């Protein structure tokens, strides 16, 4: 097994309802935060070209109570898909919390923290699903059907599975 680099992306199911992604970046927290919150920068990295997805529009009003809305299209999806919600917490250069409301109220809540460690910044992306069943379902639909009917927070990933299969 190759030695694990500090910059490696890790994913862990921390509990029945929690999924956590971590990655360390070579730069100060304020730059990582800027790349995350400024629309024109965010658009450049959120959808890597290899996904086959197109980000049609992206609006972010990054302040407490502010809303965001992302619209994607994919060749295998009949309609564009919209993802939206609002910011519950905004601590500049340190922390963002937002809701994922495309599946209705009471959806997944996402928390991202930016933790400066010397010249590097550790990013922890934490999804709290409303129930164990919701996370189970996201996993099951992602690995079996490839393109679920329910439009949950992970749909862009499901589209990726679909693209890989075709």
């Amino acid at each position, binding site marked *: 097994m190759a030695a694990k680099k500090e910059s490696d992306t890790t*994913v862990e*199911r921390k509990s029945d309802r929690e999924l956590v*992604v971590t990655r360390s970046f070579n730069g100060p927290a304020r730059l990582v935060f*800027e790349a995350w919150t400024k629309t024109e*920068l965010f658009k*450049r990295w959120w959808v890597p070209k290899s996904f086959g997805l197109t980000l049609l529009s992206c609006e972010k009003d990054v302040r407490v109570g502010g809303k965001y809305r992302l619209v994607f299209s994919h060749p295998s999806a009949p309609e564009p898909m919209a993802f939206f919600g609002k910011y519950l917490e905004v601590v500049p250069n340190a922390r963002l919390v937002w809701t994922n409301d495309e599946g209705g109220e009471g959806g997944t809540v996402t928390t991202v923290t930016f933790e400066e460690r010397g010249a590097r910044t550790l990013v922890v992306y934490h999804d709290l699903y409303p129930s164990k069943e919701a996370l189970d379902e996201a*996993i099951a639909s992602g*690995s079996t059907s490839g393109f679920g009917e329910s439009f949950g927070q992970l749909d862009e990933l499901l589209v990726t599975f679909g693209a890989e299969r075709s």
Partner: protein
Amino acid sequence: MVQYGQTRFDASFAALSDATRRGVLEQLGRSDASITQLAEKFHMTLTGMKKHVGVLEQAGLVTTEKVGRVRTCKLGLGRLEQEAAWIEAYRRLWAARFDELDNVIEELKRKEKADGRKKRK
């Protein structure tokens, strides 16, 4: 932690507790087979074999697909393996995304440096 795995383990162990079902898994490890072929191989009735395959399917160890009148069985990923595969694919998605973010951050750093030099002049 990880209570969610318990019932899945139970289903898998129950499925594996039977010698015929273990034999079926071994057989399917060599090649896919129809229920009829499996029934003949294990000298069973179609109904009996259907039952066994049903238990294996419930446990996620076998998947079946019906084409015309023939139901073909093949090894399926267990639910735990399925979850592991999903998490690895999810990780790849984030790795690709974060690689792009790396590039954006590098660019911001370069720009900041260049701006800093300009200001000092």
